[in-house]
C-alpha cells in the first residue's frame, strides 16, 4: 500500500477564488492510501516546496499528488522537489485544478466538486505508480543548421565558437539569404552587405563549419542527441574543390536570358552563374534547366574557358549521411505572391513592385547599379507611392493574405521612403499606412525622421486601386484623416507584401516531427519561456521560421538557439524519458502487431528461453523495446492483442483507475 500525501495549491486566488481548497484537501484525506493532506497558498514557492519535502520525510510518503496548475507548467518542478526529498520523481502526479477547473468554471460548488474528482483520479493513479528510472543515451557532438541566411550563419558561428563542429545546409548555391539581397538596414542605415559579408567569410574560413550549399535535407531519423540525417547535395556540375570562382565561365556562357533570381527576375543571368560577387562558397553553378550542354549536349563553352578544369557535366546528386546531436531550423521567409491582390496591378505593370524588388533597385549591386529607375522604361520616377500591409492583417474570411502582422514592413518602408528622399529630393514620396508600428530601439525616432526631416508624406488610409494608364500609375486611395479619396499619379508603386515561411518548412517539420502553427511558422516549446526550442527535443528554432522578425531580433534568437545547442552538446549523456513501452514477456506471443505500429522502429524481437509449468524449457519469440528509441506514444499498447504491452507512467491499470475515479 502506498503512503500518499496530497498538496492542494491556492495559486493565490487563481484556484482558491473558484475552488474551496480546504474542502478539497479534506475530501482527499479519506481516499485510499492518503496519509496526509494539506493546502497552501503557493505550492510552487520555496516555502511550498519545503512543505512537500518535510511531509515526505515526516510521513514517509511513497507518492504525492499536487492539485495545482497544469502539469505542463510545474510537473517538472514538483518532481525535482520529490527527488530532493529522496522520493522517486515519477511517484508525483498532478491534478490540474487551475487551467482545467478553476479558470473555466464560474461558481465555487461546481469548481470544488470537480477539483475533488480530479484529485481523486490523481490519487487513484498514484496508488498504482511505480518508481521509474530514465535510461541514458550518448550525444553526438555535432550540430546541423538548416538554412544559411543571417539566422543560420549566426547560429553556426556561435556553436563553432564554443568548439563544436557545425554543418550548414542551404538550398541556394550560396549562403547569405534575404539579408544579402537588402540594401541598407534600419534604423542605422548601415549597408547590409558591409555587415553580412564579413560574417559569410568567417563561416567559410571557420574549420569547425562545413557548408553544404545547393543541398537539401532529405531524411531525418533518430532523436535528441542522436539524429541520423541524409542530405542531398544537388549536382551543380562544377567541382567545388577545384573551382576558383574566377567567373570566366559566367562571362562566356552563351545562354544569357535566364531570369536572375537574386535580382528577383528584374535582370538576366547566364546558365552558369555565381549569384553575387561575395557568394560563399564562391563557386559557379550550372542551371540544368537553362544549360544547352545538359539539355541537348550542344555547347560546352564553360568547360573550354575554365582554366581550372572544374566543369563536370556528368556530376550526379550526392547523398551525404551524417549524425548530429542537435538540429537548428533557420529556413527563413519569403514575401507572399501578389497574384491575389491585382487591384494593385502587380501583374499588369512592371512599375508596381514589391519592397524586396525595391531593395534590389536601390542596391548598388542590383540591376540598375543602385540608380533608382523604374523597371518599365528605366526613367527616374518622380512620384512614388508605398502601400503598407498588402496581404498582412487579413481576416481568414477574406480568403487571401495572412492574418498576422508581418512586423518588418513599417520600418523598411520608412527606410525606403527616407532613402529615396535623401538621394532624390525632387521625388515626392507617399506612404499609405493603417498603423505605423515601431516598437523597437530607435524605431519610432527613425520613422519620425522620415516624416519630419525627409518630408515623406504619410497618409492614414489604404490604396484601393492602382490603374496603369499611359506612363502613369493612377493610384486611388483614402485619406482617413482628411476624410477624402485621394488620387495620385505615380511613377512607381511599391507594395509591402506580407511575409510567409519558406515553402520548405512544412515538409521539413514533418521530417523533424516538429509542430507548426496554422501559418506554417514553427511552434516554440513555450511562447514565453522557451522561445527558441521546438517542442521536439533536440530541435531548435532560429529566425523568421518561427515568426516574422527583423535582423536584430533574428540575430539575438540565433545566438539564443546556439547557446541551447551548446548546452545540449556539452553533455556527454542524456537522460531519456522513462515513460516508455514495456512488454510482459510471459504474455507476449510474438505476433509483431506492436512492431508494425511503432513509428520509431523501437520494437525488435528476440528468441528467449522460458521455463514452462511442467519444468521443460521452451524457446519463444518475444518483443523488446529499445529504451533509447521509444518515445512513449503508446500505439503498441493498444495494438497488442494479448495485452502484453504496457506503457510505464501511463499503464492501462492506471488509466482505468482514473476512469473509475471520475465515474464514481
Amino acid at each position, binding site marked *: 500500500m502506498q503512503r500518499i500525501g496530497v498538496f492542494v495549491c491556492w495559486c493565490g486566488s487563481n484556484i482558491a477564488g473558484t475552488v474551496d481548497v480546504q474542502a478539497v484537501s479534506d475530501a482527499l484525506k479519506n481516499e485510499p492510501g492518503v496519509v496526509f493532506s494539506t493546502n497552501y497558498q503557493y505550492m510552487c514557492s520555496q516555502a511550498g516546496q519545503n512543505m512537500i519535502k518535510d511531509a515526505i520525510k515526516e510521513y514517509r510518503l511513497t507518492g504525492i499528488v499536487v492539485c495545482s496548475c497544469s502539469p505542463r507548467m510545474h510537473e517538472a518542478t514538483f518532481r525535482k522537489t520529490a527527488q530532493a526529498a529522496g522520493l522517486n520523481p515519477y511517484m508525483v502526479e498532478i491534478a490540474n485544478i487551475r487551467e482545467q477547473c478553476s479558470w473555466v468554471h464560474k461558481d465555487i460548488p461546481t469548481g470544488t466538486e470537480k477539483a475533488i474528482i480530479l484529485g481523486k483520479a490523481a490519487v487513484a493513479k498514484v496508488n498504482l505508480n511505480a518508481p521509474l528510472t530514465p535510461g541514458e543515451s550518448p550525444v553526438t557532438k555535432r550540430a546541423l543548421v538548416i538554412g544559411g541566411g543571417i539566422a543560420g550563419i549566426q547560429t553556426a558561428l556561435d556553436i563553432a565558437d564554443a568548439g563544436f563542429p557545425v554543418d550548414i545546409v542551404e538550398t541556394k548555391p550560396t549562403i547569405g539569404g534575404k539579408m544579402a539581397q537588402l540594401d541598407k538596414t534600419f534604423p542605422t542605415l548601415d549597408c547590409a552587405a558591409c555587415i553580412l559579408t564579413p560574417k559569410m567569410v568567417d563561416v567559410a574560413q571557420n574549420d569547425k563549419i562545413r557548408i553544404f550549399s545547393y543541398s537539401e535535407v532529405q531524411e531525418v531519423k533518430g532523436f535528441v542527441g542522436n539524429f541520423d540525417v541524409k542530405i542531398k547535395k544537388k549536382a551543380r556540375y562544377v567541382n567545388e574543390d577545384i573551382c576558383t570562382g574566377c567567373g570566366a565561365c559566367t562571362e562566356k556562357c552563351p545562354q544569357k536570358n535566364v531570369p536572375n533570381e537574386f535580382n528577383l527576375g528584374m535582370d538576366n543571368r547566364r546558365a552558369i552563374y555565381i549569384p553575387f560577387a561575395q557568394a560563399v562558397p564562391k563557386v559557379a553553378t550550372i542551371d540544368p534547366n537553362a544549360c544547352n550542354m545538359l539539355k541537348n549536349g550542344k555547347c560546352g563553352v564553360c568547360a573550354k574557358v575554365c582554366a581550372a578544369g572544374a566543369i563536370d557535366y556528368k556530376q550526379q546528386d550526392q547523398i551525404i549521411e551524417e549524425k548530429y546531436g542537435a538540429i537548428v531550423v533557420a529556413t527563413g521567409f519569403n514575401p507572399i505572391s501578389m497574384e491575389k491582390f491585382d*487591384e494593385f496591378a502587380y501583374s499588369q505593370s512592371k512599375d508596381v513592385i514589391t519592397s524586396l524588388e525595391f531593395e534590389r533597385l536601390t542596391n548598388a549591386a542590383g540591376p540598375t547599379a543602385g540608380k533608382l529607375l523604374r523597371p518599365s522604361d528605366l526613367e527616374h520616377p518622380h512620384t512614388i507611392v508605398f502601400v503598407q*500591409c498588402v496581404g498582412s*492583417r*487579413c*481576416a*481568414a*474570411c*477574406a*480568403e487571401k*493574405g495572412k492574418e498576422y502582422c508581418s512586423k518588418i514592413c513599417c520600418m523598411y518602408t520608412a527606410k525606403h521612403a527616407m532613402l529615396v528622399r535623401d538621394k532624390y529630393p525632387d521625388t515626392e514620396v507617399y506612404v499609405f499606412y*493603417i498603423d505605423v508600428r515601431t516598437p523597437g530601439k530607435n524605431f519610432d525616432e527613425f520613422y519620425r525622421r522620415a516624416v519630419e526631416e525627409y518630408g515623406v508624406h504619410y497618409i*492614414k*488610409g*489604404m*490604396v*484601393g*486601386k492602382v490603374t496603369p494608364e499611359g506612363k502613369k500609375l493612377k493610384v*486611388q*486611395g*483614402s*485619406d*482617413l484623416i482628411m*476624410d477624402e*479619396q485621394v488620387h495620385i499619379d505615380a511613377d512607381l508603386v511599391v507594395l509591402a507584401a506580407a511575409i510567409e515561411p519558406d515553402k520548405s518548412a512544412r515538409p521539413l517539420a514533418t521530417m523533424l516531427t516538429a509542430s507548426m502553427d496554422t501559418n506554417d511558422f514553427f511552434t516554440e516549446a513555450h511562447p514565453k519561456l522557451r522561445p527558441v526550442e521546438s517542442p521536439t527535443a533536440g530541435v531548435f528554432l532560429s529566425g523568421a521560421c518561427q515568426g516574422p522578425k527583423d535582423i536584430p531580433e533574428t540575430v539575438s534568437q540565433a545566438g539564443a538557439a546556439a547557446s541551447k545547442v551548446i548546452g545540449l552538446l556539452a553533455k556527454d549523456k542524456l537522460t531519456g524519458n522513462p515513460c516508455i513501452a514495456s512488454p510482459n514477456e510471459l504474455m507476449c506471443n510474438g505476433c509483431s502487431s506492436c512492431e508494425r505500429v511503432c513509428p520509431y522502429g523501437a520494437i525488435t524481437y528476440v528468441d528467449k528461453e522460458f521455463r514452462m509449468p511442467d519444468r521443460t524449457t521452451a524457446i519463444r519469440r518475444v518483443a523488446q523495446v529499445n529504451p533509447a528509441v521509444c518515445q512513449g506514444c503508446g500505439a503498441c499498447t493498444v495494438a497488442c492483442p494479448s495485452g502484453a504491452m504496457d506503457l510505464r507512467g501511463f499503464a492501462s491499470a492506471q488509466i482505468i483507475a482514473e476512469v473509475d475515479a471520475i465515474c464514481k
Partner: protein
Amino acid sequence: MSQQNNNLKEELIRISGVNPKKCMRCGKCSATCPAYEEMEYHPHEFVVMVENGNIEPLLNTESLYRCLTCFACVERCPRGVEPAKLVEAVRLVATRRQGANHMKADDVPAKLDEDLPQQAIVSAFRKYTK
C-alpha cells in the same frame, strides 16, 4: 447608446449579416469605392457609425442611393467586413419606413431614353423602393 439606437444597430447587424466590429479602420473600402465623391457618408463611415449606434444620419443621407452595390469594397476588404451589405441594410430600413420610397413610378418616364435597358429600371426600383 440609447435603447432606440441600439435596437436599430441590432436590426442592421441581423439583416445584413455584417459584424462591424471586425473593421480595423484601414479605409480600403472607401479607397476603392467608385461612388466616393457622390457620397456624404462613405463606406468606412457606415461601418463605424453603425458600430457606434449613430444611425439616424445614415437613414437620412442621399448616400444610400449613390452606392452602386458593385461589391468592390466587399471584395477588397482585408477583414471581410462587407460594407456594401451594411449600406444595403440601412437603405432597406429607410425604405421600409412608411412613405420613404426614394423613387416613385411617376418619376420614371422623365428619366427614360429609348436605349435605357429594362434592367436599369427594375434594378433602380428594387434598390429605391419597397
